[in-house]
């Protein structure tokens, strides 16, 4: 029964991606996720048009870009639909700019995490033996590292060099990515182990295809569906981690992020609920969007993985 052809290249009738899309369409939760993510992507792309004020805008007479009045902690009103925070920033504008930052963080950190996971997962699964052993030990080490603490420490170093943490967002993204691969690599490894046993890969190994070619031409396409799902879920996780960092005041304060708004608002919870509530809702919605999307993709791409 096992086919000698690479199943991703040769399929009779409707392709597997078309089938997956059909399954995806039938799942309301997945569609909801797609719509949410799409909506946020729109906000992120057109933030400058949607937001009334520039990012991190202190409305002083000396600030030519910002015409608002210096009015900290104002409740929601027509001029400031989400109120203002303790810096007099317009929370609505800050939240809109936060969308772009969130995508930047999510995609950036996930790209890093996924590149590492793919390299390690594929190598461990394909070569097996000592390589596998070594890589899996390394993975375990990374799993017990107090990652969040080390992240905070790193960011403190950045502060020392820049004072505002400027440029810190990129470094933060890099570090989040560099610590987020172990779980993903493990899953990819087990997928590779599954695929490696398939007949067509045995066959191409026997005709002397190079490891590189087998890995990237044959194995990678066959674990692609898993990779897509992991990527989507990793985006959600990365956004959450960054928000936590900014909430503690360790983020890059030159970039408007939702977590930063939390940081500003936290000391004034009893006076100004709006500073926390609106960014929180946006953050939760976006993360939820990616989570729903990821799970929808999992159901659609690989019904076997449903749980």
């Amino acid at each position, binding site marked *: 029964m096992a086919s000698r052809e690479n199943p991703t290249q040769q399929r009779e009738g409707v392709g597997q991606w078309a089938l997956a899309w059909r*399954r995806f369409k039938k799942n309301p939760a997945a569609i909801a996720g797609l719509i949410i993510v799409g909506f946020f992507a729109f906000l992120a792309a057109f933030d400058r048009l949607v937001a009334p004020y520039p990012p991190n805008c202190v409305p002083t007479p000396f600030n030519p870009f910002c015409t608002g009045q210096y009015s900290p902690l104002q409740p929601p009103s027509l001029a400031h639909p989400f109120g203002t925070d303790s810096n007099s920033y317009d929370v609505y504008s800050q939240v809109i700019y936060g969308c772009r930052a969130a995508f930047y963080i999510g995609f950036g950190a996930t790209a890093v995490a996924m590149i590492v996971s793919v390299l390690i997962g594929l190598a461990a699964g394909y070569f097996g033996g000592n390589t596998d052993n070594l890589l899996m030990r390394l993975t375990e080490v990374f799993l017990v590292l107090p990652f969040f603490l080390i992240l905070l420490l790193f960011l403190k170093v950045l502060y020392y060099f820049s004072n505002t943490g400027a440029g810190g967002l990129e470094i933060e993204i890099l570090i989040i990515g560099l610590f987020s691969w172990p779980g993903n690599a493990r899953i990819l490894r087990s997928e590779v182990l599954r695929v490696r046993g398939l007949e067509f890969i045995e066959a191409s190994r026997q005709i002397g295809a190079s490891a590189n070619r087998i890995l990237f031409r044959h194995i990678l396409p066959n674990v692609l569906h898993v990779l897509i799902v992991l990527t989507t879920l990793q985006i959600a996780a990365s956004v959450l981690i960054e928000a936590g960092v900014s909430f503690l005041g360790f983020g890059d304060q030159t970039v408007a992020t939702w977590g930063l708004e939390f940081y500003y608002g936290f000391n004034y919870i009893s006076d100004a609920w709006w500073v926390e509530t609106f960014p929180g809702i946006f953050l939760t919605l976006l993360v939820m969007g990616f989570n729903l999307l990821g799970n929808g993709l999992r159901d659609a791409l690989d019904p076997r993985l449903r749980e």
Partner: protein
Amino acid sequence: MSETLLSVEGLRTYFYTYAGVVKAVDGITLQVNKGETLGLVGESGSGKTVTAQSIMRIVPTPGKTIEGTVKFEERNLLRLKESEMQHIRGKEIAYIPQDPTTTLDPVYSVGDQLVEVIMRHQPVSKRYALAKAIELLHSVGIADPEIRINQYPHELSGGTKQRIAIARALSCEPILILADEPTTALDVTIQAQILELLKDLKQKLNVAMVLITHDMGIVADTCDRVTVLYAGQVCETGTTEQVFENPKHPYTEALLSSVPSLALRKETLSVIPGSVPNLIHPPSGCRFHPRCAYSRQVCIDKDPELEPIGEGRFVHCHRWKELDLKSAVAS
């Protein structure tokens, strides 16, 4: 004629999956008489296991038995309350699942798992149940039952596990045993031993049995009657002798011709060209028509009836009367 013990009629069990409705069992009818062994044969995926599970009412989700009757000693099992059904399972009808290597719970000892079943159906003390369990192990040919009883499944060989599964099935003296491919997962030498054991026990206890297999050789060796399944439906039913000497269904003919020699028990059947049909969108008319050497237009248009053709024989084919099928194994 002997007394009917189990009579299944028009049984339909479907799986409601993501990809569509899998019509795994689609109108199966069969009988088991007291004390006899019925062989249930068919290729992989023909619905043998699901039939047995439907009789026991243990079809896993998303499967559902949606139609039919399962009459067991005058009761329709499909109508019983779940609590009543629990007292039939394991006590009156026992089921030996397909793969002995996975039918024992890995975290409990052999003794625990036998005692549990014995005490569920019989009002006995734990000590008595344990003694009974040891005796059972002894009766299924396990050496050193006192040691085995305290061992865990991972410490046992496949053959031993299967013997224990058989012991568990026998533990409450059932009237009917459904044995799902009891030998397929085992080494050839062990296969023969387990078959001998089953035949032996059957003789001693006079229990009726449904023996699920895809090995015609085993059928010839052990079964009084046989029901041949294809794609969730019955092809034909008859005594072993009738079916082997004088098959009435083209699929049976093909099955028999794929058995090179009865002495040489083959692991798998299918040397029949074509493959088992998709059970979500099964072929129109007679489900066997894409692979049938005798198919005509009528076979594509219309699903044949399961016709009684006398002496407990049934055939599910439009053309059984006109065809003159030969048996490759007829003596």
